[in-house]
């Protein structure tokens, strides 16, 4: 029913659009150039008036209806049933009533419950119809009001644009609120964690063994929550990925923009971009089955013994994965540099290399840094390749041939299986998440400042 109501409101606002437009067309016919706004805007204005308030009303109605009816139903139960009963017992009653009302009867319900279920059904129906009537009435009144305001001199365009402004502000506010919500929930759980484990242990401890018992009967370690190895592991893998991806990505972008023929570029660029669409699990396979054994082989040739899970294999494959972000964004940034900059440089007698390093790269810097940043955050957030190729043990090392683990992998393993929100094992995931969030935020801010500082603007 609600779905039909939404459709009806949309249909009404479409009608309002046509009404508004034809009204305004008549104005144009009778008043000519005096009419302030074009008929299109009159139509849009009427459509907004008819659609938006009704939609908002329906949404608010739906949000409050259930709670209200629940409360009324409980209040209507005879005192003999509710007398001296705990709140959880009451909510059991409520769900039984709802089950009965929707025809799922498990055991013989008491007559009070049956009566309440009947009432529940009736009230639901009444509320639903009331909503339809009210919403349609609001639409109709709005259409009437909008029609009254319409006149040749009426500034429909400004009114419609104001409505658009409000819509955009609302969207921005929603995005900000979601971000704040994420921060608040992360911070709350992280604070719970720091109540159980002192922050200095988390931030400076060198041991990470979080798999402690959650239930009494589990056999597990005693636990250690020093997060340093997890963060160094993340940094190590991300650094390896960037070392692979930045030079290859940048050089391939330069080649495609400055040297390659149009045809070659047309073939190679889409292929490079396909890399971004390969599922990370596939990269994980590639890392485990191809790259890691190859690295082991190569290591054994020179007498190095390399663990089967190595940061190098995971980071290297991750570098391939993030390559398209860097090459594609750098490519766009380089192409956006006007030809006149190249001409100016060549006319000064600069060689191609000088033109690239002294004019093109500085001018394209913001785009390039943007690409590197995007790639870095992908690398830091990447989980699957690490699980498959780098392992789960948190080792404190800078050696790319060792196995390491990363923050995101740890968060996943901590939240898989038994969870309990008064246990440091589960809560530590949120502490890790918070630190990850804050550090990527700092990274972004830093990069923005770098870009602003060194940016070379062209016309």
């Amino acid at each position, binding site marked *: 029913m609600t779905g039909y109501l939404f459709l009806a409101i949309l249909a009404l606002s479409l009608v309002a659009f046509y009404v508004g437009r034809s009204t305004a067309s008549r104005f144009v016919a009778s008043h000519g150039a005096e009419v302030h706004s074009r008929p299109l805007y009159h139509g849009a204005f009427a459509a907004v008036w008819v659609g938006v308030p009704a939609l908002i009303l329906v949404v608010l109605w739906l949000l409050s209806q259930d709670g209200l009816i629940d409360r009324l139903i409980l209040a209507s139960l005879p005192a003999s049933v509710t007398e001296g009963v705990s709140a959880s017992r009451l909510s059991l009653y409520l769900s039984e009533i709802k089950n009965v009302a929707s025809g799922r009867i498990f055991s013989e319900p008491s007559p009070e419950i049956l009566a309440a279920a009947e009432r529940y059904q009736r009230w639901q129906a009444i509320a639903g119809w009331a909503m339809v009537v009210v919403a349609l009435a609001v639409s109709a009144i709005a259409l009437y009001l909008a029609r009254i305001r319409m006149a040749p001199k009426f500034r429909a365009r400004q009114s419609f644009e104001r409505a658009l402004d409000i819509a955009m502000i609302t969207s921005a506010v929603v995005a900000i609120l979601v971000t704040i919500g994420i921060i608040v929930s992360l911070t709350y759980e992280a604070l719970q964690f720091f109540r159980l484990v002192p922050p200095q242990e988390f931030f400076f401890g060198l041991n990470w063994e979080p798999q402690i018992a959650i239930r009494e009967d589990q056999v597990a370690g005693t636990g250690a929550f020093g997060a340093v190895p997890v963060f160094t592991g993340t940094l190590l893998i991300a650094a390896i990925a960037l070392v692979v991806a930045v030079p290859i990505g940048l050089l391939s972008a330069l080649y495609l923009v400055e040297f390659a023929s149009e045809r070659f570029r047309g073939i190679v660029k889409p292929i490079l971009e396909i890399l971004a669409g390969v599922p990370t699990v596939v990269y994980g396979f590639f890392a485990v089955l191809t790259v890691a054994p190859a690295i082991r082989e190569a290591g054994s040739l020179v007498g190095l013994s390399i663990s089967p899970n190595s940061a190098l294999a995971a980071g290297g494959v991750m570098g391939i994965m993030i390559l398209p972000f860097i090459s594609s964004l750098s490519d766009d940034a380089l192409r956006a540099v*006007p030809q*006149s*900059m*190249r*001409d*100016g*440089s*060549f*006319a*000064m*007698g*600069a*060689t191609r290399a*000088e033109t690239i390093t*002294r*004019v093109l790269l*500085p*001018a394209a810097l913001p785009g390039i840094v943007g690409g590197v940043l995007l790639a870095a955050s992908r690398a830091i957030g990447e989980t699957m390749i690490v699980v498959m190729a780098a392992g789960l043990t948190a080792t404190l090392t800078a050696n790319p041939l060792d196995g390491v683990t990363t923050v995101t992998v740890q968060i996943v393993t901590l939240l898989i299986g038994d969870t309990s929100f008064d246990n440091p094992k589960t809560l530590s995931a949120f502490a890790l998440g918070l630190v990850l969030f804050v550090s990527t935020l700092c990274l972004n801010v830093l990069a923005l400042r770098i870009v602003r500082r060194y940016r*070379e*603007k*062209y*016309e």
Partner: protein
Amino acid sequence: MNMLTDAAIENALDKTPAREAVKMRGSDVRVFYGEKQALFDVNLDIGENQVTALIGPSGCGKSTFLRCLNRMNDTIDICRVTGDITLDGEDIYNPRIDVVELRARVGMVFQKPNPFPKSIYENVAYGPRIHGLASAKNDMDAIVETSLQKAGLFNEVKDRLHEPGTGLSGGQQQRLCIARAIAVSPEVILMDEPCSALDPIATAKVEELIDELRENYTIVIVTHSMQQAARVSQRTAMFHLGNLVEVGPTDKMFTNPEDKRTQDYITGRFG
């Protein structure tokens, strides 16, 4: 002097050759963009320490000829140039010629001001840097200052040398581009409609500047303004549909042109 008589004989159109020595000379220059021919057997001398104006209706090949003189056409893949172009008697299309060195000797100013997105100082220092003209910071400062002074811009920007060149006004940007070109002490400066994006006052400044620069540099300027050609140039060459129609001293071209097409163009009947 010998050279001058040679020029007069070789270049059938050039009935009143430059009085000064010939700095650059194009003989039978043909330019093709792919299949399409844009210049047909152009023979033109550029006199030393003189301003030569190239005029003609749009699309007639003025920019194309200008770009041949410092081999900027090399940057266009489909462009092919035949014939001889010499600088001080040396063929500039000779494979042994280093185009980097050529462009240091033959600088260019474009129609639209195109300062690099760097500071004013760095814009002027760009050429000297890549050609290694100054080793110490003092030398570079001196080059930047004299170049800006010669371009008549120094007083306007001396307090903001380290601000972006793109923040200047259009006319200042164009003078900055001229300063950038003269910072490497070229012998010839090519200007492709340098004033077309400027207002009358900025244009007057640039024209004045061109007149001063003539003392030390050889200048070739493409212009659509007859008045500008008359004001700044000593010799004028008229192009039409890829042909050099007529060339001669500017005052004669504007008072007593020989070719009907020149006459029509100057009096504004076409183009």
